[in-house]
C-alpha cells in the first residue's frame, strides 16, 4: 500500500514517528538523569577545583594536608610525616582513582556477583548476605600504588607524578575472598580473578569500563585476600571504594578493585582495561632509560618490592647541637617480611641497624626506630634502607627505569640540619 493511496496510513505513520521520536527523546533524558549523578555534578566540581590548581582544593573525607596530584580524576598522596601511625587513619589513605567516583550509592541494594568461565555457577549476594553468611576477618594490609615514586624517573614516565605517599596500611575488615569463591565453586582450570567496579569513565560513557584488573587465583585464595567493607572499624571512605572493595596486600593497589560489584573467575589471565598494553606492566628484560619497548615485551607487575619510609622526623628538621632524637618509620616487602632495617646519615657510606618490630600479620608493614645524633653542624640527609626476608635491599639510586615509571623503591631520604 502506497502512502499516496492511503492518507490516513501516512498520518498514522507520521504521528507514529513523531511519537517514537518523543519517546526516544524522553528515554535519552531519563538516561541522563540517571547518569547525571556522576556527570554534571563532578564536572562542575572539577571546574571549580581547576580554578585553585595551585593546590588548596580539598577532598571530602581526606586530611587537608594530602597533596593533590589530580582533581579529575581524584588522585592525592600522603606526606611521609602524616603516615607516622602504625595503623594508617582512614583520612590519610592515599587516593588513586582512574575514573569518576560513583555517587548516590544505594547500600541496601548493593550486590556482588561472582561469575566467569571458571565459576561453577553465577551467584549474586547482597551486602547483608556477605556480612552474615561468611566469617569475618580483620587484617592490617599494605596497599601501595604500582606507580608510587614515579616522579623521580628520567626520562619522565607519563601519569600521576607520585612522590612517596601512595602507600597505606590500615586495618581492613571483611570476608575472605576464597570463602566466597568456594561458596560459588571454583573450577580446577581457574587462572585469574578479575574485578568490576562502579566507577564511571571520565569521558562520560556509562558503559565504558574504567579499570578491571585482578590477581592470579593463587593470590586470590590466600587467607589475607579480603572482600572488605570497613577500614579501622568504620565504613570504607567513599574515595577508597565505599561500600565494598577487594584488598590484596603487597600487590599493586590497582589489583584491589574499589566499588566492587562483580568478580569474574577466569580460565586465562584476566584481560580487562588496564591489564593490557603498558598499564601496570614492566619490560620482560632490563632496558636502558628511555628505551622504546614493544608491547609484547611487557609483563604484568605482580608483587611489590621491598621499601621503607621515614615518618619521623618530618623532612626539614633543625636540631640543636648533638641532641639525640628518634628516627622511625615503616618498612614492607610485598608478600615477604622485613628482615633488617638500616639508616645512613652519610649518604650510604655507613649504615646503622634499627630496632625492628615483627609484622602483625602477613602483608602488613613493620615498624622500626633508632636514636640518632647528628655528628656536626651543617646539612645532613637521613636515608632509610630495608632488607627483605630473602636478603634483597632497597637501592640507593633509582632502580630499573621502565616506560611507565613503576616500582621505584629507592631508599627514602629526608633533609636535616644540625645548628
Amino acid at each position, binding site marked *: 500500500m502506497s502512502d499516496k493511496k492511503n492518507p490516513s496510513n501516512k498520518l498514522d505513520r507520521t*504521528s507514529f514517528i513523531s511519537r517514537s521520536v518523543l519517546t526516544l527523546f524522553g528515554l535519552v533524558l531519563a538516561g541522563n538523569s540517571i547518569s547525571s549523578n556522576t556527570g554534571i555534578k563532578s564536572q562542575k566540581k572539577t571546574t571549580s577545583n581547576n580554578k585553585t590548581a595551585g593546590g588548596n582544593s580539598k577532598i571530602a573525607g581526606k586530611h587537608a594536608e594530602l597533596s593533590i596530584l589530580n582533581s579529575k580524576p581524584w588522585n592525592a598522596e600522603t606526606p611521609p610525616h602524616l603516615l607516622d601511625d602504625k595503623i594508617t587513619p582512614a583520612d590519610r589513605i592515599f587516593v588513586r582513582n582512574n575514573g569518576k567516583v560513583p555517587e548516590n550509592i544505594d547500600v541496601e541494594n548493593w550486590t556482588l556477583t561472582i561469575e566467569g568461565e571458571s565459576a561453577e555457577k553465577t551467584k549474586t549476594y547482597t551486602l547483608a548476605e556477605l556480612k552474615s553468611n561468611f566469617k569475618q576477618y580483620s587484617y592490617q594490609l599494605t596497599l601501595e600504588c604500582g606507580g608510587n615514586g614515579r616522579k623521580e624517573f628520567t626520562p619522565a614516565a607519563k601519569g600521576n607524578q607520585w612522590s612517596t605517599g601512595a602507600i597505606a596500611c590500615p586495618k581492613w575488615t571483611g570476608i575472605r575472598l576464597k570463602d566466597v569463591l568456594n561458596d560459588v565453586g571454583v573450577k580446577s582450570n581457574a587462572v585469574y580473578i578479575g574485578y568490576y567496579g562502579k566507577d564511571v569513565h571520565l569521558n562520560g560513557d556509562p558503559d565504558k569500563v574504567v579499570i578491571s584488573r585482578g590477581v592470579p587465583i593463587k593470590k586470590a585464595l590466600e587467607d589475607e585476600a579480603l572482600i572488605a567493607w570497613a577500614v579501622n572499624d568504620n565504613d570504607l571512605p567513599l574515595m577508597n571504594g565505599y561500600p565494598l572493595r577487594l584488598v590484596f596486600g603487597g600487590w599493586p593497589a590497582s589489583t584491589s578493585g574499589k566499588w566492587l560489584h562483580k568478580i569474574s573467575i577466569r580460565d586465562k589471565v584476566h584481560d580487562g582495561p588496564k591489564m593490557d598494553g603498558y598499564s601496570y606492566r614492566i619490560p620482560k628484560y632490563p632496558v636502558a632509560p628511555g628505551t622504546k619497548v614493544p608491547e609484547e615485551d611487557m609483563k604484568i607487575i605482580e608483587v611489590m618490592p621491598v621499601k621503607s619510609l621515614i615518618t619521623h622526623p618530618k623532612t626539614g628538621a633543625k636540631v640543636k647541637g648533638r641532641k639525640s632524637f628518634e628516627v622511625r618509620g615503616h618498612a614492607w616487602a610485598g608478600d615477604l617480611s622485613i628482615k633488617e632495617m638500616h639508616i645512613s646519615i652519610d649518604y650510604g657510606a655507613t649504615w646503622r641497624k634499627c630496632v625492628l618490630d615483627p609484622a602483625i600479620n602477613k602483608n602488613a608493614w613493620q615498624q622500626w626506630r633508632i636514636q640518632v645524633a647528628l655528628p656536626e653542624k651543617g646539612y645532613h640527609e637521613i636515608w632509610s634502607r630495608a632488607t627483605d626476608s630473602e636478603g634483597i635491599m632497597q637501592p640507593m639510586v633509582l632502580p630499573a627505569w621502565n616506560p611507565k615509571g613503576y616500582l621505584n623503591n629507592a631508599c627514602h631520604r629526608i633533609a636535616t640540619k644540625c645548628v
Partner: protein
Amino acid sequence: MENEARKYVNLFAFIVILALFWPYLSELRPGLFKKHVEITPYKVEEKPEVVDGIEIESGLIYAEGYLLVKQQCTSCHSLELVTQNRATRAGWKENIRWMQETQGLWDLGTLEGPILDYLSKNYGPKEASRRANLKNIEWYEL
C-alpha cells in the same frame, strides 16, 4: 485536517523541548554529541590573570597555545594531569594517540599541531638524574 494540525503541534512541541533541554543534554553526555559540540568549559578571557608566568584559572604556563590545551583537555580530566607531566613532542603525541585509542578522545584535527607545539615547548623533558637533590624543604625546629 485536525490530524494534520496535531502532527504540526507534535513536531513543534518536540522542537521546543529539544531546544529547552539541549544545553543540559550536551553537558550531561558529552560523548553523545561529541562530534557536533565543541566542549569549552572555560570562557575565553580577553585578559587572563597571569602570575609568575602561570595563567591562574588553568594553572598552565601562559604561552602561545595554552588556550587550546585548556579547552580541549578539560572535558575529561583536570589540567594537573598535564602540568605534572614532561615529555618530548613524540611523547606527548603518543599520549594523545593513547587517549584517542582507549579513552574516547576525539580527533584534534588542525589543533593537534599547535597543541603539541605548546606541550613540547612548555612541558618538555626534564633534566636526567639518577637521584635529584632534595628540594623545597620547609625548615623547622625539632
